């Protein structure tokens, strides 16, 4: 088995390298000629967009860390120093700050894509689970990153979120002290959040690698949700999908740039322009927009412990989605009833987001309870039952037949 890899790269230097470490062969196999379904729509751009965002976030983050001070007396000022004094500091920081929102937008659309087209179903369950792990890691990273500027919302957001763990009976108090490294959110908390905020993105890179590796074993799903039946159903990844992804990346960077240059603080909270003050709570504590739906679920339950459990469950339920869905048809395009329930689920998620931004009073309480109820019923009741009851539309014979309208040529 051991010995040089037989490389067919013509360039002698590259051939010498590739014979000893066949990374060029691997890249060609996985990103060059990799057979990819020919019928992707633009929803299939969002994985690549998330990848681009992750790289940009790590790059800008490394340069921000060269100027940032993880110290309660210096953190707020060091961020102002980045904004005012550091060359292009304002640009790097605004790209990073808005990048967090962009990351969640593309990831949420990527997840919707997976749910709508049934990308989580066999044999892609593990691929999906790795994706949920990525989402959880992203959320932890984003939360800790938001604490670093040490504004009022940073401080009180950290206080409220870490206090969630106090809901667990018995051990809760000790968990919170352990997280804080003291008796309140303070210097040790800020320092460790900085350390972990720097570490977790690299853990993310590792899990993303596994996510992509698993994808390249089972292959991509596609809008029809049927497997390619031969070479006529696929295209090489390069140049077809490198080109299509590039179109999406350009549009995405325009949107991101529009936020950075024209509305850099549109998605932020004005309270974070005030330095953290442990003695004064802002009138309203709200998380960043991407956490609002989960915050609404938390507050929709009158019992603190149950609310915390429901909030975590709303994410963890995704892990078992491949086994909750009993339908054998992947794509909702061929599931006339289920399709509408998915749209309703998206509506419930958005309603939860709106509720999360309002004080839990009056109609918002009722709305958030109804939406929470549907959010869970969709996964735990409707998805398992409907899969058995629904009569799906007839599936096309093959991808080629569906996209060209011609029946398969005999071969």
């Amino acid at each position, binding site marked *: 088995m051991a010995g040089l890899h037989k490389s067919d790269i013509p360039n002698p230097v590259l051939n010498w390298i590739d014979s000893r470490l066949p990374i060029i062969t691997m890249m060609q196999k996985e990103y060059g000629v990799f057979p990819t379904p020919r019928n992707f729509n633009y929803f299939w751009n969002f994985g690549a967009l998330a990848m681009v965002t992750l790289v940009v976030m790590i790059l800008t983050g490394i340069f921000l860390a060269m100027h940032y001070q993880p110290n309660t007396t210096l953190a707020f000022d060091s961020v102002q120093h980045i904004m005012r004094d550091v060359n292009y500091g304002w640009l790097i920081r605004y790209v990073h700050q808005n990048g967090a929102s962009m990351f969640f937008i593309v990831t949420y659309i990527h997840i919707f894509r997976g749910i709508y087209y049934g990308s989580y179903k066999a044999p892609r369950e593990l691929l999906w689970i790795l994706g949920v792990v990525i989402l959880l890691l992203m959320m932890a990273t984003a939360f800790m990153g938001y604490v670093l500027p040490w504004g009022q919302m940073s401080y009180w957001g950290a206080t409220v979120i870490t206090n969630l763990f106090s809901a667990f009976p018995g051990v809760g108090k000790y968990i919170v002290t352990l997280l804080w490294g003291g008796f309140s959110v303070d210097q040790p908390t800020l320092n460790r959040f900085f350390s972990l905020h720097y570490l977790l993105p690299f853990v993310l890179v590792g899990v993303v690698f596994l996510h992509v590796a698993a994808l390249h074993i089972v292959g991509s799903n596609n809008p029809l949700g049927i497997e390619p039946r031969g070479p006529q159903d696929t295209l090489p990844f390069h140049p077809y999908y490198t080109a299509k992804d590039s179109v999406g990346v350009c549009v995405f960077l325009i949107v991101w740039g529009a936020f950075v240059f024209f509305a850099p603080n549109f998605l932020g909270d004005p309270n974070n322009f005030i330095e953290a003050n442990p*003695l004064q709570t802002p009138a309203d*504590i709200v998380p960043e927009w991407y956490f609002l739906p989960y915050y609404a679920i938390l507050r929709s339950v009158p019992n603190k412990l149950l609310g915390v459990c429901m909030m975590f469950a709303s994410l963890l339920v995704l892990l078992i989605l491949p086994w909750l869905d009993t339908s054998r048809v992947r794509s909702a395009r061929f599931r006339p009833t289920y399709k509408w329930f998915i749209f309703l689920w998206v509506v419930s998620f958005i309603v939860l987001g709106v509720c999360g931004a309002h004080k839990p009073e009056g109609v918002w309480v009722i709305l958030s309870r109804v939406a929470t109820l549907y959010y869970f019923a969709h996964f735990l009741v409707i998805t398992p039952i409907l899969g058995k009851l629904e009569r799906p539309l007839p599936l096309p014979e093959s991808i080629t037949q569906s996209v060209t309208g011609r029946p398969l040529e005999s071969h």
Partner: protein
Amino acid sequence: MAESSASTAHGGSHGHPADGTKRDTLELIAGAGAAMLAGGIGWALIGSMNPSKDVLAVSSVEIDLAPIPTGQGITVMWQGKPIFVRHRTDKEIAEARDVKLSELPDPQTDKSRVKAGHDQWIVLIGICTHLGCIPLGNKPTDMRGEWGGWFCPCHGSQYDTSGRIRKGPAPLDLAVPPYAFESDTRIKIG
């Protein structure tokens, strides 16, 4: 295959028929050793995240009560948390005592919340028991709510002059920190 030939060779040269058991024992010892090592490393690393000695060292503060006029309160920091120390008027004390326990969501007598002989001083952890906001009411110019104690601006919880919850979403009375009078005008918290 390699295993069986190895065990035969060992068994033959050392004359131990139960050589497999010896190998199992070695594996168990090695495994247990590695587990203990990993546990020890984990213990130290996670332990390093708990409050350090300097944080624990400042876990008590002393407060001079002499400058606080009647009817006013001060806020001091203890373990990173705000502590309310309020010098109550006779009227406020009377109001706090003149209430039926059955009317309270979290029933506690005013006597149990102050030190005997120092009824005018109420010492509280100034963190709303609802979602951790800091209630208003230490300054006479602050909003103090219907019961003249403290008022939380976040979600409208109202506390009386004994720091007991009277109205609003907070489930519990404001907590009383551990403290003791060192003299008539000096307390030590923690």
